[in-house]
């Protein structure tokens, strides 16, 4: 997996633009902080305490959209792009197509994300959940995704012979992300309307998770977990089942986001069945990763990045188990429209994918900056505050969602469902603050690490020091 030290193998400095990887990480963390501020504002509004009620540009409703979009296109996309700049050249033994193109994509993507945020704050949102990017930015983002696919697709396509699992996921994700973005942002806006647009919208939300975030995340796991454990994946057969099962079943489920809408019932049932089928596939992936860990589970205690990864894998199992239950019509009747779904979404996006990216950063930053973390203890604090805060938030919202659903079904006056939600929303703010402070601590730790980095100090003699494994 890692570059063999043979004479003809290309060297790391010719493969990976480490500076760019680091920039992506800085951008990702910046958007994470911005996004969390938006979430905080909306959370405070629910508690009827809006600290900034005066300006329309600080409206919680608009910042709520910044919250979700900054996570998808700011944190996750930047984190994954940085990770791919490290992983893809090292796996394919070829640099990306063009380093100048890489720099251009980096700059262009930040323009896309920033203008999305500005557009949302100006009230220009498109009415597509998780695709609120104003319509005038969509073509630019679409072109950016094409360039990304070309830049990374080139070294992948050039690989001779069979590819490693990670590259299956990345190659497919490059195609899927481009197609998903195009489908979601253009079809329900310009081609279809009403119920059919709802079906496309559901497919878009779903594919953005399933065909962009998930394959990027799992590709990352298939790369880093065997490296950290210094052993191959437990079963190649299960890797195959996992990839092809995801590729086939995942995109068939878009409509399960809009059950009980006027979308034809047989399509709703199809989406439900396909969701349940996917959970069996997920189980094989989990078994594969648990099998890989077999006998060395204690490493999760001593190896911090590994701990992030397996925490995320545990949450992945939990969320997918939850999916299989909550997608049934019986469950939907109760929990649809409630905070249950919000809790579920946080568990997936933060508990799984953000934890993976943060763990990957914990592992790579010392290698990029050629020095150990400024404070390893802070890294541990970051882990506990992130994982603990998320567990509290997800558990709290999932439970609160049940109360909301029962309150509505019992035909209680609407304000009763607000009263019953209040304690849950209060706990959510505490959990959210904990998660926010964790990311502030990580950012500060990153800053202090950069300050003592030999790269910054210009001490070239130190650049070949390989830091101890975090």
């Amino acid at each position, binding site marked *: 997996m890692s570059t063999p030290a043979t004479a003809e193998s290309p060297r790391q400095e010719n493969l990976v633009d480490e500076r760019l990887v680091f920039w992506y990480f800085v951008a990702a963390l910046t958007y994470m902080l911005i996004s969390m501020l938006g979430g905080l504002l909306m959370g405070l509004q629910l508690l009827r305490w809006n600290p900034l009620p005066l300006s329309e540009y600080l409206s919680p*409703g608009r910042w709520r959209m910044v919250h979700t979009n900054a996570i998808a296109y700011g944190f996750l996309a930047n984190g994954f792009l940085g990770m791919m700049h490290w992983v893809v050249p090292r796996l394919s033994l070829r640099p990306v197509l063009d380093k100048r193109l890489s720099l251009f994509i980096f700059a262009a993507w930040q323009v896309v994300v920033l203008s999305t945020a500005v557009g949302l704050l100006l009230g220009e949102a498109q009415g597509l959940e998780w695709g609120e990017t104003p319509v005038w930015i969509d073509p630019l983002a679409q072109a950016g995704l094409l360039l990304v696919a070309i830049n990374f697709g080139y070294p992948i396509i050039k690989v001779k012979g069979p590819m490693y699992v990670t590259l299956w996921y990345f190659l497919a994700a490059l195609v899927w992300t481009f197609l998903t973005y195009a489908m979601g942002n253009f079809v329900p806006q310009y081609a279809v309307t009403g119920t059919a647009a709802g079906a496309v919208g559901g497919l878009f939300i779903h594919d953005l998770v399933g065909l962009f975030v998930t394959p990027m995340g799992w590709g990352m796991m298939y790369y880093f977990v065997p490296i950290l454990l210094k052993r191959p994946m437990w079963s190649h057969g299960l890797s195959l089942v996992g990839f092809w099962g995801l*590729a086939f079943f995942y*995109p068939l489920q878009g409509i399960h986001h809009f059950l009980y809408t006027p979308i034809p019932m047989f399509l709703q049932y199809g989406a439900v069945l396909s969701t349940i089928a996917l959970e069996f596939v997920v189980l094989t992936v989990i078994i594969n990763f648990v099998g890989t860990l077999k006998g060395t589970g204690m490493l999760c205690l001593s190896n911090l990045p590994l701990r992030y990864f397996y925490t995320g894998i545990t949450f992945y199992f939990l969320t997918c188990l939850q999916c299989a239950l909550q997608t049934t019509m019986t469950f939907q009747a109760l929990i649809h429209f409630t905070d249950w779904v919000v809790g579920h979404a946080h568990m997936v996006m933060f508990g799984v994918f953000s934890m993976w990216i943060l763990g990957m950063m914990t592992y790579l930053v010392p290698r990029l900056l050629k020095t150990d973390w400024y404070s390893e203890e802070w890294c541990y604090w970051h882990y506990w505050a992130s994982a603990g805060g998320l567990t509290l938030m997800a558990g709290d919202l999932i439970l609160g969602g049940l109360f909301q659903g029962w309150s509505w079904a019992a035909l209680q006056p609407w304000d009763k469902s607000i009263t019953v939600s209040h304690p849950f929303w209060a706990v959510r703010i505490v959990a959210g603050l904990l998660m926010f402070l964790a990311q502030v601590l990580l950012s500060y730790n990153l800053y202090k690490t950069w300050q003592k980095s030999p790269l910054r100090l210009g001490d070239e003699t130190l650049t070949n020091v390989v830091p101890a494994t975090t």
Partner: protein
Amino acid sequence: MFESKSGIFLVAGIGFFGLAFLSNALVPAMMYRHLPEKTVKELVNGNLRYQFEDLAQRYPDAFKAAYGEPPEDPAKAELWYNEKCAESLTIGRKIYTGEGCWHCHSQFVRPVSNEERRWGPVSKTWEYQNELQRPVMFGTRRVGPDLSREGGRRSSDWQAVHLFKPVTLSPGSPMPEYPWLFDGAPDKPNKRGLALLTYLQWLGSWHETYPYYEDYEASKILPTPKGEGESEEEAPAEEPAAEATTSEAPAAEAPAVETPAPAAEPAAEAKPEPAATSDAPKNE
């Protein structure tokens, strides 16, 4: 195929994506192709027109500033109102989207969880076959109630005060305030405010009846103290007072005076006292 570049690119990347797009997106689009998509102009109906002209009477200055004056000739004025109403709807939808209203208010009534009793008829596809549902505003979360049957349920005065400062009418509401839709006071909506009011009054106006979702007893499972059954979510006890202080034309007078209005309107206007009219048929 399973590990080759072409297999992954063509079969998984393009093939499976296309299959899902076909089954999950194209099939519903094909199934509803016999329902023509209405333009915004075609959406202007009698109920909505009544509400739109009502806005012109309630907020004459604001309305004039936003849309100018209607022509003298009644036939031309008719067309003029229709045109301005459609324009207002379009802007209203943009504000509804831009302010993120749809992230806390859904626009579909499900056939489960007693929603029919709370909000009226279950949503059907024809209700969404129009330009204002690009993309559709189904929504995925309900912090506040569903709005797909909101139009005409409450007076525009109520809506205006509620948008300006929700807690005045819904104590304990976590809804944000939208003062930028007004020129300093709830009886002075600006163009954006008028547009959002039009949009809200449009939602469900295509139905002949307006459901009263205050119209049920509190659940037997969780008995509430006596009197709670009537003091509904909007706390109607405070409503008349708020109406009186914030509007120059109290809504309660409307049913007696407004005889030439379209059939559905008297009931709609009488709504500020849901307890009194609760069992009356909606528009007979």
